């Protein structure tokens, strides 16, 4: 494995350089072949890694040391990769789905002038994401963490000629930055407590030395702050819906399948640390579930097809955090995986719809598209069923496992999670019915001067959809719960070396059946309601609480009022009183003062040579006097 492991991140980096440098000279087909090809080779290597990685209980991670980033007596930070079961799963998700989305982008971005730039950024993103999951210490993760943030910023603002998009990119970057501060501080604190940043050493020290619970609580809370930034949780979640300004493949890859799950990955990676911080876990669970509920309600009333999916992503991430708060790390990782499948599928499907509708994102103008786009329609339907959690599609297994952990941990959180699951199926089928059933509401789609009908997308776009649809169907079978089959939870066994298996389920099978049945019946009702309300129809004017949902709980407005406006006001005060009349005065004051002094001293230069000589003689005499008689 040592021979090829370094190729996995290196190849996308190479692709970035080739595509980045040749963005104006290489042909579009060559760029897409290079861009997708490097990721595909990385994917093949990841499969190799996945097959050879030590897994199961007691498995030790493999560490590959390349060179030292920092090497001082007091601190060593090596550039090294840590490969274990958790990493290998993320490698598969990143490179596998990444490859599909690259292929898709070749079709989706065909007409775009920034084609080469787009593929270069995508490759760079894959590189940083791989660094994030493969690093063997917090510093490496931080490099990846910042790198994916940068790529996210670049790709959200990809169409930078639109001011709103640039604003969205900046918003994402700044909000991520707030979280990154948490990561940095946590890293410093870890170094102070443990004296190292290497995962294996830090977690090894947890067993041998006593670390105060205050320090562990602080570190984990700071790490969770970082996770709220990257994974879009309260209070930093508002950037993700705005991030939909980027091209749709970006939304699918970065803002649904991979980057936003970095927070889950990080916490799972540090699960030994978080297990020692019960209060932090409590905080994570509540923040996750509340985020999940709020964003699910918002998603119910959005008309932009990508916004619905964005809020749905935040909501699903919230569920994952809630599961993590319950200690169900495997369930969270499981859901990361299945969610990556069906959310990437849904986003790509939405992209296909947008492409077919000639850049129309408003669902109130769609409808009846199943006639025009059969492949997209079927795959999207599979995605909706999967995310709604209907067996035997993948979403059911992972969601069921998460809800079960909540049921055992905290009944209130479980209740909210239950509601969120029902809402999820409602808004996803609302999206489905508004988009695909009924009649096309906007008969003529305007496309650059001429009118055209909606059309099915090209093969490069539909094939990834089909592959993802298949994955969404079968992806759940790696984690079949004990209820259905003994010892069939392959993922649990696979990850047991990284994540200490929790206690056995103390829950009777009859209760479990009951929970599943209750949930499924509620989901069925929700889907029925959605079909009644939105089959060929759209929302009426919102009133009451629906208006709150439609306006996203006024979170942006609240932030504007309580954070942004005061900061800008404070800035204006400083500008007026400190900058202009304080520092400005000081700076121009020194100039004015020296001008004034020299203006007066200048008159000493009379031009009278006799006077000069006299002064010189006096000076010399005085100097000699001091020298000989020691007057001073």
């Amino acid at each position, binding site marked *: 494995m040592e021979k090829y492991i370094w190729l996995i991140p290196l190849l996308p980096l190479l692709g970035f350089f080739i595509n980045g440098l040749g963005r104006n000279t290489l042909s579009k087909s060559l760029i897409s072949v290079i861009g997708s090809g490097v990721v595909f080779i990385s994917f093949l290597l990841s499969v190799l890694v996945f097959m050879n990685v030590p897994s199961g209980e007691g498995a030790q991670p493999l560490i590959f040391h390349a060179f030292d980033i920092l090497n001082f007596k007091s601190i060593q930070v090596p550039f090294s990769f840590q490969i274990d079961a958790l990493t290998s799963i993320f490698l598969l998700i990143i490179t596998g789905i990444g490859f599909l989305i690259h292929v898709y982008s070749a079709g989706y971005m065909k007409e775009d002038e920034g084609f080469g730039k787009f593929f270069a950024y995508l490759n760079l993103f894959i590189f940083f994401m791989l660094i994030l999951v493969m690093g063997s210490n917090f510093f490496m993760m931080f490099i990846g963490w910042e790198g994916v943030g940068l790529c996210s910023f670049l790709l959200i603002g990809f169409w930078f000629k639109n001011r709103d998009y640039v604003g969205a990119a900046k918003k994402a970057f700044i909000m991520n930055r707030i979280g990154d501060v948490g990561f940095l501080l946590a890293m410093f604190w870890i170094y102070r407590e443990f004296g190292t940043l290497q995962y294996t050493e830090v977690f090894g020290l947890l067993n041998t030395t006593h670390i105060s619970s205050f320090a562990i609580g602080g570190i984990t809370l700071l790490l969770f702050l970082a996770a709220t930034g990257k994974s879009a949780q309260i209070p930093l979640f508002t950037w993700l819906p705005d991030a939909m300004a980027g091209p749709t493949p970006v939304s699918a890859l970065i803002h649904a399948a991979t980057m936003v799950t970095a927070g889950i990955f990080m916490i799972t990676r540090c699960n030994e640390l978080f297990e020692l911080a019960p209060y932090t876990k409590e905080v994570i669970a509540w923040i996750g579930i509340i985020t999940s509920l709020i964003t699910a309600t918002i998603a119910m009333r959005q008309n932009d097809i990508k916004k619905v999916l964005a809020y749905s992503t935040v909501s699903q991430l919230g569920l994952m955090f809630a599961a993590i708060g319950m200690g169900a790390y495997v369930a969270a990782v499981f859901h990361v995986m299945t969610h990556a499948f069906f959310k990437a599928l849904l986003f790509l499907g939405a992209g296909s719809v947008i492409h077919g509708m000639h850049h129309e994102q408003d669902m109130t103008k769609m409808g009846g598209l199943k006639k025009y786009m059969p492949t997209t329609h079927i795959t999207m339907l599979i995605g909706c069923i999967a995310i709604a959690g209907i067996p035997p599609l993948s979403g059911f297994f992972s969601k069921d496992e998460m809800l079960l952990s909540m049921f055992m941990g905290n009944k209130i959180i479980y209740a909210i999670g239950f509601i969120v699951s029902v809402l999820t199926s409602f808004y996803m089928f609302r999206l489905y019915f508004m988009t695909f059933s009924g009649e096309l509401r906007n008969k003529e789609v305007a496309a650059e001067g001429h009118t055209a009908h909606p059309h099915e997308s090209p093969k490069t776009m539909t094939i990834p959809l089909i592959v993802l649809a298949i994955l969404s169907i079968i992806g759940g079978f790696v984690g079949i719960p004990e209820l259905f089959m003994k010892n069939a939870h392959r993922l649990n066994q696979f990850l047991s070396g990284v994540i200490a298996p929790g206690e056995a389920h103390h829950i009777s099978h009859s209760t479990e059946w009951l929970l599943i049945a209750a949930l499924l019946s509620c989901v069925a009702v929700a889907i029925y309601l959605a079909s009644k309300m939105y089959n060929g129809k759209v929302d009426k004017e919102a009133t009451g609480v629906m208006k709150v949902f439609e306006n996203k709980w006024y979170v942006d407005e609240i932030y504007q009022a309580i954070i942004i406006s005061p900061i800008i006001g404070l800035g204006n005060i400083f500008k007026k009183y400190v900058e202009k009349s304080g520092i400005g005065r000081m700076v121009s004051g020194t100039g004015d003062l020296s001008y004034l002094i020299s203006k007066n001293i200048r008159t000493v*230069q*009379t*031009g*009278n*040579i*006799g006077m000069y*000589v*006299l002064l010189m*003689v006096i000076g010399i005499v005085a100097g000699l006097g001091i020298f000989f008689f020691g007057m001073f």
Partner: protein
Amino acid sequence: MIPISYYLFLSLGLFSIGMIGVMTRRNIIIMLMCVELMLNSVNLLLVAFSKMHQAKNLGTEAGIDGQMLVLFIMVVAAAEVAIGLSIMILFYRKVYNVDVQSLNRLKH
């Protein structure tokens, strides 16, 4: 032998005359001459001390270097005067007189 104090007073007198000349006169030629006077008074002093030094250590070469230094100073002074005079000529061509007071144009 003439005591050293005679030389000292002569030299002091010459130097003072030169200094007062530089300070009080306006004619640039006279000022230059006064500067030369000051220089030569110092030269004289150097020779006198050198001679005194030699007289104390008869039969040795002590003190001879002071007299040699004076010769060098004269050479350098000659070169310096050449420059001084050429500046003076340029000055005269500029203002058509030899009064240093007319060299205060920068003041305005």
